[in-house]
């Protein structure tokens, strides 16, 4: 089967921990050398509030709340830049308690036909179970979770499949590679998150691609 390329592809890194959103302003990132000064000047600052901060550059969308930090890009050229930005932030804010880190990909694939699109749903969620219970049942979303097989790593891999709202007929696949960080003294959890980004990020993205390829092979 010809390898399918996604129509839309997003990569994000999500940190769960304790954050102070208001300091993570574009000007702060520029002052720390993590983005260009010119990028900070033209950043689209959507919200800047003690509870939540959202801004975007041409290659980055950043959302920070008290317990969640997400850096995201739709540009394949900037996947490493996202990783470096998160690493740099963790380096500077090394006392930030981090409870978990997610290395994620969000993909929208176009199907060759509506029939192929419907077949994806039929294979993942056979409809005969629902006969007599629902009229015209259709799969809205499906999430499967598997354990990690890497030594010394706690966490899971979660895959969500849904009809795409951006591509029609299309399938949306979300791969969440979740790493749980051991509860520790302040200052050490951010080091563990940095270590995961340094040593496991590349393998995680490759695993995402492999998993998606295997899944599409089975579904189409």
């Amino acid at each position: 089967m010809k390898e399918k390329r996604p129509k839309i592809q997003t990569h994000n890194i999500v940190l769960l921990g304790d954050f102070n959103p208001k300091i993570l302003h574009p000007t702060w990132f520029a002052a720390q050398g993590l983005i260009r000064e010119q990028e900070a000047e033209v950043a689209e600052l959507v919200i800047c509030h003690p509870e939540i901060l959202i801004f975007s550059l041409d290659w980055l969308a950043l959302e920070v709340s008290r317990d969640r930090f997400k850096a995201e890009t739709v540009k394949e050229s900037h996947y490493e830049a996202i990783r470096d930005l998160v690493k740099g932030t963790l380096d500077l804010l090394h006392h930030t308690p981090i409870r978990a880190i997610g290395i994620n990909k969000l993909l929208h694939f176009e199907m060759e036909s509506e029939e192929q699109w419907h077949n994806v749903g039929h294979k993942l969620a056979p409809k005969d179970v629902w006969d007599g219970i629902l009229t015209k049942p259709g799969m809205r979303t499906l999430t499967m979770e598997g354990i990690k097989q890497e030594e010394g790593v706690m966490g899971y891999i979660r895959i969500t499949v849904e009809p795409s709202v951006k591509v029609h007929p299309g399938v949306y696949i979300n791969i969440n590679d979740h790493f749980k960080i051991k509860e520790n003294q302040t200052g050490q959890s951010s080091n563990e998150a940095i270590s995961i980004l340094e040593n496991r990020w590349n393998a995680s993205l490759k695993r995402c691609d492999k998993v998606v390829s295997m899944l599409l092979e089975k579904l189409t």
Partner: protein
Amino acid sequence: MNSELPLLDTDSNIEDVMQGRTCINLSLFSKEIPKDYPFKRLINPSLDSSVYEKAQEISYEAEESNHKLACPQFIQPKGYSYVDRFEALQKWECIVLEVQDESFRARLIDLTQEGPDEEAEFSIQEVSEEDRKLIRRGSVFYWTIGYNDLKGQRTRESLIRFRRLPVWRERDIDAAGRRARELRESIHWK
């Protein structure tokens, strides 16, 4: 909400605003627009429900304490959209080996497929102005060749972006380098 839409007039109503057919003036906004509407326009609830819920909480808390939130701007973020994207055909992680006046040489590590490292020479003109101060022996950059889709127009592009370390980390590295040189010079080899 598109800033080029006509302003609300006497023939328009709130339904026109909600459907995005017209803009709104501030006084009508504060009276008529539902509390969660501004945040729905700024944060896509289907993408990130936790952020959306937090934004709603802020809105309701502000209302209860009689503090008015600043009216958010209804401007579609520019330059970041699921339609605009860069599809990489080939990517390398590169390490600068040597810097000359107008060019620099680098070792290329293929990120797209397995293969031997290569070397290439780049013109300094290929590098964004603000990144040029990062060009030095040992610094890392990413070179990507691919298709850039911007507002429906596809172009083939070659993109160079230097890795950015926190400013204090660079100073740390420089200081460590100086200290290492001092130590080496202080050793009297026999």
